[in-house]
């Protein structure tokens, strides 16, 4: 006789219809034109990229759209050396917090077109766009070094998180 039952399989399959909503929708629409458009909080005046439906600290809507630069500074980073499910690039590659010029929030994205061992805090980088462009932040394939001088620690140390 075969082995006693010790395990059953439990398939769960669910289908969702997801609307981006007006705030993320406007952000995605601008992405299609290779523009990075965040939102400014009317209360604290900070610029969020990607935009949020409300300012996370002030809890007010952010109606004002603000286009930010496509260059920015790496404030901190990690070199990803292991594969995991859902991964876009092949390790090793650098995942960095990047504060774009004109934005106040770090964007978690990938640094490419350079040896991972040369990625450093304070490094200047710029967006490299995918082709074709889809309505997702993955349309920025990665950020690459600009060759500009590094930014001093004091200028970004408040933006590490």
């Amino acid at each position: 006789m075969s082995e006693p039952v010790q395990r059953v399989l439990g398939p769960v399959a669910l289908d969702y219809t997801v609307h981006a909503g007006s705030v993320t929708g406007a952000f995605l629409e601008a992405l299609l034109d290779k523009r990075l458009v965040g939102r400014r909080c009317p209360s604290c005046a900070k610029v969020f990229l990607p935009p949020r439906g409300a300012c996370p600290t002030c809890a007010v809507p952010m109606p004002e759209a603000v286009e930010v630069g496509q260059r920015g500074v790496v404030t901190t980073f990690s070199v990803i050396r292991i594969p995991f499910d859902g991964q876009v690039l092949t390790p090793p590659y650098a995942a960095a917090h990047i504060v774009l010029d004109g934005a106040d929030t770090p964007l978690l994205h990938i640094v490419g077109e350079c040896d991972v061992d040369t990625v450093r805090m304070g490094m200047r980088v710029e967006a490299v766009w995918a082709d074709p462009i889809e309505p997702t932040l993955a349309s920025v394939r990665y950020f690459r070094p600009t060759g500009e001088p590094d930014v001093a620690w004091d200028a970004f140390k408040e933006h590490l998180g």
Partner: protein
Amino acid sequence: MRPVHIAGIGQIPNVRGDTDHDEVQLVQAVASAALAEAGLHKDDIGFFCSGSSDYVMGRPFSFTMAIDGVGLWPPKRESHVEMDGAWALYEAWVRLQHGDVDTALVYAYGKGHGAPVDGMLTAQLDPYYEAPLGPSPMALAALQARALIDAGRLTERDLAEVVAHARRLGATHPGVPAIDGPLDVDALLDAPYVATPLRAHDEAVRTDGATAIVLSVGGGGPRIGGIAHCIEPIELGLRDLTAATSVRRAAAWAGLEQAGSIDVAELHATYSPQAVLLRQVLGLADAVVDPSGGALVADTPFVTGLSRIAEAARAVQGGAVRALAHASGGPCLQHNLICLLEAR
């Protein structure tokens, strides 16, 4: 117990397919409205608590994003339940008993319209013996309806009357999406069965929406006279489906018997037989039931229970002396919460 009052309510219309708001926008809209009604600022709030479902939203940790709508900065006391927002209100009520904080903001949000609510509810069942069979929540509700018919407690006309009642009242309520279908009992009884004795209209209309409530110790507004909840086993075969045991217990613990007559009741019945059963076990013959139209005409999953408390509080604001709100979770009224609200 410290007296806890409903100081402010924030609601937005429940809609079929909200294309504008993400969860942050939903929460921001109702939280700011509730705070405005209470005359408070977020920084006046001592405790924040929310209810939502990752499976309704389609992603894990959905609530960690939604909190951006309430502005937890500087850092706030905050918690979250993976249950209907009515239980978040319960946690806040308990928290307010401590004495160190006097205000709480409770909220719930959900997008039930684009979500696979049936599949999600089936995924609540026992994963070894029941979920693999794939019964729909309506089929389970129908098993309860048949048990009530067999017990002489229910007729199909009773079901149609409950639906017609919900549609008539819901048609004029600003929080309810446009009623789609007949308001007439005979016309309802002409509709085909989906799961005998239930028809498509015996199931709630799934919507998107959010609700927020500000609680305060003392002050004005409807007072929470009693609040309690109770659960039963999930397995239908291990329950008396006609007894609603956990509804009765929750009501008794909330003090329903001592409370005096109920003027208004708002019930979390997502299938019409539940609405009939709840009226029977809660003794609501003299009450106005579901003046909002109730859950059958606008069911935003994991919000509907908290919305019932909001609607019952509105009834007290509008002159009712005593109102009852009911919230539920699990199949066939498995988990139930009763909240009694009183005029000051």
